């Protein structure tokens, strides 16, 4: 049992730091923060990382993965978060790509994977449907065979960044005769296909991130079907655990916690820094201790994965605790911001950290609902870890 860094690990850390210093420059930072330039800046950022060969560390080496050790992954995530550099968007790299390289055919791999790596295509995810929620398998969007194509009709919802997307990967119903998990297929759909309509959804953070995507007689070539027809549920499910692990966001929470501590050192109450207020300290360290634990819980899962084991139901623990910690941090930042936390205006009347407090808090409410709600995660642990029926 040992978590000390080897000389190679330390050298790798230096390499990561040097890369981030150069690639994540002030100009890019500014463009990422601006709504008008966000999309192209995010794409450029991924291309810079991809040029370094680090866009998809978790992929198999043959498709462009890094074959990093668990320690290297840990180092990379920590350095990236500490630098404040954004994660790659997960929809292409972490969600659809593993399905393509695991279950897709050679043509699909050659066609899509390099473009995903280089962010040539912007992907979005079409799983949830109006009314389906955590009961994903009850989806109703149907795809009917018509010659060499499928004709898709229905609607997907909660689709992040669909307004930017070139492609959407969808679960669609190709057979309604059996139980609901059967008869689902995994389709890749070009967003430019006629019949697709994107309706924006304004969130409680007052931003436009989410969308509803309607499909009206959308024609999709059979070549865009992953694996076998009616087996899509199996493919999607196999990768859901990956998504959960990613949601934990330990490194990002560490950065956020340090930032809050620093802000509280400047914020005064009764002339004294809030950081020395005993209740603030209690609230902060309650979270910090859980986060210190979760960091090692994640390392334990990573170490297990590095030794060849697939992430199992324990990834549900990462998701639950990770999102609870994120929300607790969001609440704490909001509390620190005091009066300023409620300001919702375009002009700069409050302060930057407080504006972020409100937006993050509101946007963050969804974390315990998406990726399989935390209640569903608890059901998974109860059933598959504790053996309760």
């Amino acid at each position, binding site marked *: 049992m040992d978590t000390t860094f080897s000389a190679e690990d330390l050298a790798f850390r230096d390499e990561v730091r040097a890369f981030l210093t150069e690639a994540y420059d002030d100009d890019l930072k500014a463009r990422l923060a601006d709504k008008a330039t966000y999309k192209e800046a995010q794409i450029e950022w991924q291309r810079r990382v991809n040029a370094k060969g680090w866009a998809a560390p978790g992929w198999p080496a043959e498709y462009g993965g890094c074959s990093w050790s668990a320690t290297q992954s840990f180092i990379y995530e920590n350095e990236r978060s500490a630098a404040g550099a954004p994660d790659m968007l997960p929809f292409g790299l972490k969600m659809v790509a593993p399905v393509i390289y695991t279950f897709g055919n050679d043509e699909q791999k050659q066609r899509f994977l390099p473009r995903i790596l280089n962010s040539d295509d912007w992907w979005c995810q079409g799983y949830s449907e109006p009314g389906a929620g955590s009961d994903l398998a009850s989806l109703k969007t149907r795809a009917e065979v018509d010659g060499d194509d499928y004709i898709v009709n229905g609607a997907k919802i909660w689709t992040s960044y669909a307004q930017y997307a070139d492609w959407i990967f969808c679960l669609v119903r190709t057979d309604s005769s059996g139980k609901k998990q059967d008869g689902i297929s995994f389709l890749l759909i070009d967003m430019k296909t006629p019949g697709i309509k994107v309706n924006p959804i304004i969130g409680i953070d007052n931003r436009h991130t989410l969308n509803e995507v309607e499909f009206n007689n959308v024609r999709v070539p059979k070549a865009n079907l992953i694996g076998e027809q009616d087996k899509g549920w199996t493919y999607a499910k196999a990768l859901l655990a990956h998504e959960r692990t990613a949601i934990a966001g330990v490194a990002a929470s560490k950065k956020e916690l340090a930032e809050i501590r620093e802000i509280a050192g400047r914020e005064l109450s*009764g002339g004294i820094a809030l950081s020395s207020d005993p209740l603030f300290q209690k609230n902060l360290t309650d979270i910090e201790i859980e986060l210190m634990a979760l960091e090692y819980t994640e390392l334990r899962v990573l170490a297990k994965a590095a030794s060849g084991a697939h992430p199992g139901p324990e990834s549900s623990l990462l998701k639950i605790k990770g999102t609870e910690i994120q929300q607790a941090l969001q609440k704490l930042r*909001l509390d620190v911001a005091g009066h300023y936390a409620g300001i919702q205006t375009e002009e700069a009347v409050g302060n930057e950290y407080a504006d972020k407090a409100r937006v993050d808090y509101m946007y963050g409410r969804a974390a315990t609902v998406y990726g399989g709600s935390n*209640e569903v995660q608890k059901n998974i642990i109860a059933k598959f870890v504790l053996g309760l029926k």
Partner: protein
Amino acid sequence: MNFDYTEEQNMLKDSVARFVQDQYDFEARCKVAALEEGYSADNWKTFAELGWLSIPFAEEHGGFGGNVVDTMLLMEELGKGLVLEPFLATVVLFGGLLSRGAADQQQYIGSVIEGSLQGAFAYAERQSRFNLNDVATQAIANGDGYRLNGEKIVVLNGAVADKLIVSARTSGSQLDSAGISLFLVDANAKGVARQGYRMMDGQKVANILLQDVEVTSADLVGELDQGLALMQSVISEATVAVGAEAVGIMDKLQATTVEYTKTREQFGVAIGSFQALQHRMVEMFMACEQTRSLLYRAACSQSADQAQADRDVLALKVMVGRAGKLVGDEAFQLHGGIGMTDELDVGHYVKRLMMINTLFGDADFSQQRFAELAG
């Protein structure tokens, strides 16, 4: 001992409830929120006509002579409708201070009651956080009067108020309890600059810059240097009022959530049939009931001895923050994705609850003050 409303109170309650139901559904509320002023002048006129604006004022000032319970039940019903009209700012805070002022100042009460005067109480500052005694705004003696300099932030109704009551330091240093005085200031007086903006609950507020604003000694509200006690007193009343508003909101969120889970189906059954969710909704219910109990307690103790009354108000404020958070969190979580959209009312109720938590000092701040007063 009884917790019943009088017949008159029941009539008032019904009248407010009817207004909310008939004229203030969520769609109507969104329209009000879109207005530049942050409230509807028509609605305000209705409030005046129905006599609501007169409730807390003494009969000798032309008021209804109502007590804390009257204001409480009105605020609870307004809470259920997320009513944006500035009853709290103009009637409870500004009006409450006028009532404690000199005769010359009390004469404005009539205008408040008839709905022709909007007021605001400007006390918070950039550095003050929740400490009423942290006042950097200066009032320097200047002939018969004073010259005010400083900045006030997040002033409720501050963007549209005709008159302001402003806290400023007439002696002592920034954190001293003594040496704070209150001044009645015309919002259009020379040297007053207002920057209006929105809060997440739809309220219109303002930052107010005071640059060499001249006031006379007749504009002094209450005694010189003794403003803190006055502020505390009116804020205590206002805390019970927003406590009542919070209880209205919490009950509404709780009921909405329970109803939603009865109709929303997942895995082939209504999600309200899942025992884990049922038990959490029971926690919501208990949180609402416990908050209501502290509301009644604080209302009943307003006539009791001061120390006990202060503790009761602070206990209510702590519970509003904590129980309100629990209810808001669960309302979001049990509504799932749909709860996180701007078009559903749930998020708006939660945001108002969050703003009430911060108002006058959040749960942690209030709890520490509560502990200091502990017997």
